[in-house]
C-alpha cells in the first residue's frame, strides 16, 4: 500500500513538474513574441523558475528580448549570466547562439577584442557540436572582424578558411560559401586589391543562382559597386549600387543601407553633384546611427570629411576628420591591438590544447577499442575452446558409453544363448532320466516277468520256451537301445579319439575273454585327431563293430578277427574280417546282420558283406562324415 501511495505521489510530482516546464516555455515564448506585454510575461515566468535549467531558459529569452530592443548594456548583462549557466548545463547550441549575438553587439560597438573573443567562443562551441556550417560562418565572422580592424591579410586568411570548410563539407550550403567569398572580397577591396576583390564578388554572382534567398543579392551588389567605385568606374558602380539599394530597402537593413548611401554620396560628389551627395550623406548618417555600427559611422565620417574638403568647406571637413580620428583611435589604440593579438594567440593555444586533448581522447578511444577487440577475441576464443572441449569430452563420453553398451550387449546375448542352451540341455537330461527310470524299469519288469513265466512253464514245449526267450532277449536289446538312444540324445558329439579308445577297450576286453582268438585292431594314422562324429554316428560305428565281432565269436568260431578303420577323402571305411565258418549271404540274415544293416542305413553309408561257407566273412561299412 505504501509503495502504491509513493508511486502515485511520484506520478503526480512528475506531471506537475512537466506542466510547470511547459507553462514556463509558453510564457517565455509569449514574452519574446508579444513585445507590449513582454515584462508581464517575464514576470510571470520568473515565478515558475525552480531549477538551473529554468534559469538558463529564462535568461536566454531575456537576453534575446533586450537584444532585439538594442539595449546594449542589458544585453551584455544577460549574455554574461546566461552563458555561465549554459556552460554548466553544457547546452552548446544555445551557448553558441548567445556568444554569436554577443559578438555582434561588441562588433557594432567597435569593441573588436570582445567581438573576437565572442566569436571564438561561438566557434569553439560550433566545433564541439561538429556543425560545419556554423564553423564556416564563424570563420567568416572572424574575417569581418579583422576587416573592420583593418587587418586585411588575416581577414582574407579566415575568409578562405571559411570557404574551404564549407566547400569540403558533405552537406554543402551555398549560403555560407557566398558569405565566405564576400568576406574575402571586402578584405581585398580595402586592402587595395580591387581585381582580387572583384574576382570573389563575381564568383558570388554565380553562387547566388544556387540560393533561393534574395537577401544575399543586396550586399553582393553593394560590394561589387563599392569596388567599382574605388576603381573610379562611377557609372557602373552607381548602377549596381542602386540595384543593391532597392533590395536593401525591401529588407530594411540599416547597415547595408548606410553603406549604399555612403557609396552613392561618394559617386555623386566625385561626379560633381554636391547637392545629391549631401542628401545621400544625410541618409547614410541616419542609417549608420540606426545600425549603431561604429565601423559604419566611421566610414560615413571619413567620406564626409573628403566631401567637404572637395567642396572647399575645410572647417567642416576638419571637424568630420577629427570626429573620424577620435572614433578611429578609440578602435585602433595599441592596447586594443595588443589585446586582439593576445586573444588570437589565446584562441590558437586553446585550439591546440583542445586538438591535443582530442588526440589524446582519440588515442584513449582507440586503445579502448583495441582492448575491447582483444576482449572480444579472447572471449570468443574462450567460448570456442570451452564449447570445443565440452563437445570433445561429450563425444568421448558417448563413444565410451557406446563401446560399453556394445560389449554389454554382446555379453548379454552370449549369456542368454548359453543359459538357454544350458537349461534346454538340463531339461532334456531330466526327461531322459525320467524316460530311463520309467521305461527302463518297466522293460526290466517285463524281462523278469518272462523269466518267471519260463520258470512256471517248465513243461511247456520248446516252441513256447524259445519264443519266450526271444521276447526276453528282444526286451533286453530294447533296454540297451533305449539307453544308447538316451545317451546319444544328450551328448552332442564324440571325438575320434574317444571313439577309438572305446573300440580299443572293447577289442581288448574281447581278447581277455577269449585268448584263443587273435584280435587285430588297426587304425589309419592319417585320420586327423580333430575329427568329430555325432554321438549317434559314434554309437552306430561302435555297435556295428561290436555286432560283427560278436557274430564272428559266437557263430563263426573264428581264430582270427581283425578290425581296421581308415579314411580317404572324408569317407570312413570300417572293415571287420574273420576267418570263421562264414555263411551263405543269400539266406535269410539273423538279428545281428539286420542290426548292422539298420545302423549302416542310419549312417547313410554303404555296407558290403562277403562271406562263403568255410572261408570267413568280410564286412565293410563306408560312410561320410
Amino acid at each position: 500500500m505504501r509503495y502504491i501511495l509513493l508511486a502515485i505521489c511520484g506520478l503526480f510530482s512528475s506531471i506537475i513538474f512537466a506542466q510547470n516546464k511547459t507553462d514556463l516555455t509558453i510564457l517565455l515564448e509569449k514574452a519574446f513574441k508579444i513585445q507590449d506585454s513582454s515584462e508581464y510575461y517575464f514576470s510571470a515566468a520568473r515565478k515558475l523558475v525552480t531549477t538551473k535549467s529554468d534559469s538558463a531558459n529564462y535568461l536566454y529569452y531575456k537576453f534575446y528580448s533586450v537584444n532585439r530592443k538594442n539595449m546594449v548594456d542589458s544585453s551584455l548583462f544577460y549574455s554574461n549570466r546566461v552563458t555561465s549557466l549554459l556552460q554548466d548545463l553544457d547546452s552548446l547550441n544555445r551557448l553558441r547562439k548567445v556568444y554569436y549575438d554577443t559578438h555582434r553587439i561588441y562588433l557594432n560597438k567597435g569593441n573588436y577584442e570582445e567581438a573576437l573573443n565572442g566569436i571564438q567562443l561561438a566557434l569553439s562551441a560550433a566545433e564541439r557540436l561538429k556543425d560545419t556550417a556554423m564553423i564556416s560562418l564563424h570563420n567568416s565572422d572572424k574575417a569581418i572582424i579583422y576587416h573592420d580592424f583593418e587587418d586585411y591579410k588575416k581577414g582574407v586568411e579566415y575568409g578562405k578558411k571559411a570557404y574551404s570548410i564549407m566547400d569540403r563539407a558533405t552537406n554543402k550550403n551555398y549560403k555560407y560559401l557566398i558569405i565566405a567569398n564576400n568576406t574575402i572580397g571586402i578584405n581585398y577591396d580595402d586592402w587595395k586589391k580591387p581585381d582580387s576583390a572583384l574576382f570573389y564578388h563575381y564568383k558570388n554572382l554565380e553562387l547566388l543562382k544556387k540560393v533561393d534567398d534574395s537577401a544575399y543579392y543586396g550586399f553582393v551588389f553593394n560590394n561589387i559597386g563599392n569596388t567599382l567605385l574605388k576603381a573610379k568606374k562611377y557609372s557602373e558602380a552607381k548602377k549596381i549600387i542602386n540595384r543593391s539599394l532597392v533590395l536593401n530597402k525591401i529588407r530594411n537593413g540599416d547597415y547595408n543601407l548606410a553603406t549604399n548611401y555612403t557609396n552613392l554620396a561618394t559617386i555623386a560628389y566625385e561626379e560633381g553633384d554636391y547637392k545629391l551627395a549631401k542628401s545621400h550623406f544625410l541618409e547614410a548618417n541616419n542609417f549608420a546611427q540606426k545600425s549603431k555600427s561604429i565601423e559604419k559611422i566611421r566610414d560615413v565620417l571619413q567620406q564626409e570629411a573628403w566631401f567637404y574638403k572637395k567642396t572647399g568647406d575645410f572647417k567642416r571637413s576638419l571637424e568630420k576628420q577629427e570626429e573620424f580620428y577620435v572614433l578611429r583611435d578609440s578602435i585602433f589604440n595599441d592596447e586594443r591591438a595588443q589585446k586582439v593579438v593576445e586573444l588570437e594567440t589565446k584562441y590558437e593555444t586553446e585550439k591546440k590544447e583542445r586538438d591535443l586533448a582530442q588526440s589524446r581522447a582519440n588515442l584513449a578511444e582507440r586503445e579502448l577499442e583495441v582492448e575491447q577487440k582483444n576482449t572480444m577475441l579472447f572471449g570468443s576464443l574462450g567460448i570456442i575452446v570451452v564449447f570445443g572441449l565440452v563437445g570433445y569430452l561429450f563425444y568421448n563420453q558417448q563413444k565410451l558409453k557406446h563401446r560399453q553398451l556394445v560389449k554389454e550387449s554382446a555379453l548379454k546375448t552370449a549369456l542368454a544363448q548359453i543359459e538357454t542352451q544350458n537349461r534346454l540341455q538340463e531339461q532334456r537330461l531330466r526327461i531322459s532320466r525320467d524316460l530311463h527310470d520309467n521305461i527302463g524299469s518297466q522293460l526290466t519288469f517285463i524281462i523278469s516277468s518272462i523269466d518267471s513265466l519260463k520258470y512256471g512253464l517248465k513243461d511247456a514245449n520248446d516252441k513256447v520256451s524259445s519264443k519266450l526267450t526271444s521276447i526276453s532277449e528282444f526286451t533286453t536289446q530294447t533296454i540297451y537301445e533305449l539307453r544308447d538312444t538316451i545317451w546319444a540324445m544328450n551328448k552332442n558329439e564324440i571325438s575320434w579319439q574317444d571313439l577309438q579308445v572305446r573300440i580299443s577297450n572293447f577289442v581288448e576286453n574281447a581278447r581277455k575273454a577269449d585268448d584263443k582268438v587273435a584280435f587285430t585292431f588297426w587304425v589309419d594314422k592319417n585320420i586327423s585327431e580333430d575329427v568329430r562324429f555325432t554321438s549317434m554316428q559314434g554309437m552306430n560305428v561302435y555297435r556295428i563293430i561290436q555286432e560283427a565281432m560278436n557274430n564272428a565269436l559266437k557263430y563263426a568260431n573264428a581264430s582270427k578277427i581283425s578290425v581296421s578303420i581308415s579314411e580317404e577323402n572324408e569317407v570312413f571305411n570300417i572293415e571287420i574280417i574273420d576267418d570263421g565258418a562264414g555263411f551263405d549271404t543269400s539266406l535269410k540274415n539273423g538279428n545281428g546282420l539286420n542290426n548292422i544293416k539298420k545302423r549302416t542305413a542310419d549312417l547313410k553309408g554303404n555296407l558290403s558283406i562277403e562271406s562263403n561257407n568255410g572261408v570267413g566273412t568280410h564286412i565293410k561299412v563306408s560312410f561320410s562324415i
Partner: protein
Amino acid sequence: MPAYFYILSGTEFLIAILLFYFLRKRSKMKQLHWHETQQLTRAIELNSAQIQKRKTALDTYQLMNYNLSEALLVQPEILSPN
C-alpha cells in the same frame, strides 16, 4: 589488469571444472561397466561350468556297461526354461 586476463583465467577455471566433471563421470561409468561385465561374465562362466559338468558326466557312459544312471547327472540348481 586487462579484461582478457580475467577472460583467460575464467576460461582456464571453466576448463578445469569441465575436465574434473567429465573425468569423474568417465571413471564412474567405467566402474559401473566393469561391475556389469563381471556379473555377466560370471553368469556365463557358471553356465559354461554346468554344461561342462554335464558333458563330463555324459562322457563317463560306458558303451559296454550301459551305466546311464551315472552319466545322466541332474543339476537341481538349474531352472527349467519357461
